[in-house]
């Protein structure tokens, strides 16, 4: 089983992120707290682990986003991300 079998990219997280942020999020730009790379969320590596979703930097694998949705609550850990830039008007 190769690593490429286990991951998608942030495009597939668009629906989930839209449950939390009322914006188009795949084009939102995330700055990695690990290596400083600023990339659209679409270009992050998405691991849809059955217990939650994890988005990692494509360059250094730092966890930028951890999301769980448990018993009516989203828990969001963005501590790996030093900045998130979201356009307020993309349709």
């Amino acid at each position, binding site marked *: *089983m190769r*690593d490429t079998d*286990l*991951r998608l990219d942030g495009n597939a997280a668009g629906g989930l992120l839209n449950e939390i942020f009322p914006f188009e999020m795949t084009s939102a730009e995330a700055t990695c707290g690990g290596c400083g790379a600023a990339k659209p969320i679409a270009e992050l*590596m998405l*691991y849809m*682990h*059955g*217990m*939650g979703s*994890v988005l*990692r930097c494509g360059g250094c*694998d730092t*966890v930028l986003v*951890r999301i*769980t949705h*448990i*018993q009516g*609550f989203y*828990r969001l*850990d963005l501590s790996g991300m030093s900045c998130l830039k979201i356009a307020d008007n993309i349709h």
Partner: protein
Amino acid sequence: MAEQFISRGFKGRARVTDQTIKERIPPGQYETNEFPVLSAGPTPRPSLERWDFQIYGEIAEDLKWTWSEFLKLPRETMTVDIHCVTKWSKLDTVWTGVSVDTLLEGVDLDAQSDVGYLIVYCDGGYTTNLPLADVRNGKAWIAYEYGGSPLAAEHGGPARLLVPHLYFWKSAKWVRGFKLVKENRQGFWESAGYHNYGDPWKEQRYAGD
């Protein structure tokens, strides 16, 4: 609130519901014949030459084994049932590894009775936490074989923690060490809303259960 739409004829993955093994399936679980791989990141592939397992923390002396030293420790083969919080259970899985009791022999736990917890550290950054009592007395192993073959990387190889009496997220893949501590500290999933302890028979899936 509108009723949930049901997809006619959708059943999901094959779920075995053999009544003869019902009492072995914790509440809310179903039996599977597959062995799903749940992944939160790239699969670590450490060099066995540089691999080591360490026990350290709030104890008098640190312990360390290299891979070749580890393989020389007494090994056991056991058949256990495993239960994942995502609701699948897999019965009669066969593992080979070193009992955690063997590894803790070098730690004077009686002299440090206030050290009650361990934080588990792994390649790739995963962590989980457990009471020390839950990895002693035959309850836990560091497993390096599954079904008689070397443990595959996607299932946690070269070695993973195996604690079958708790939900399987506690059986940390790619384990590299235990930090023994006085105060419990939440690991990767525990800090994201999952239960601190995780007893499948009490259905302790989420914080507050």
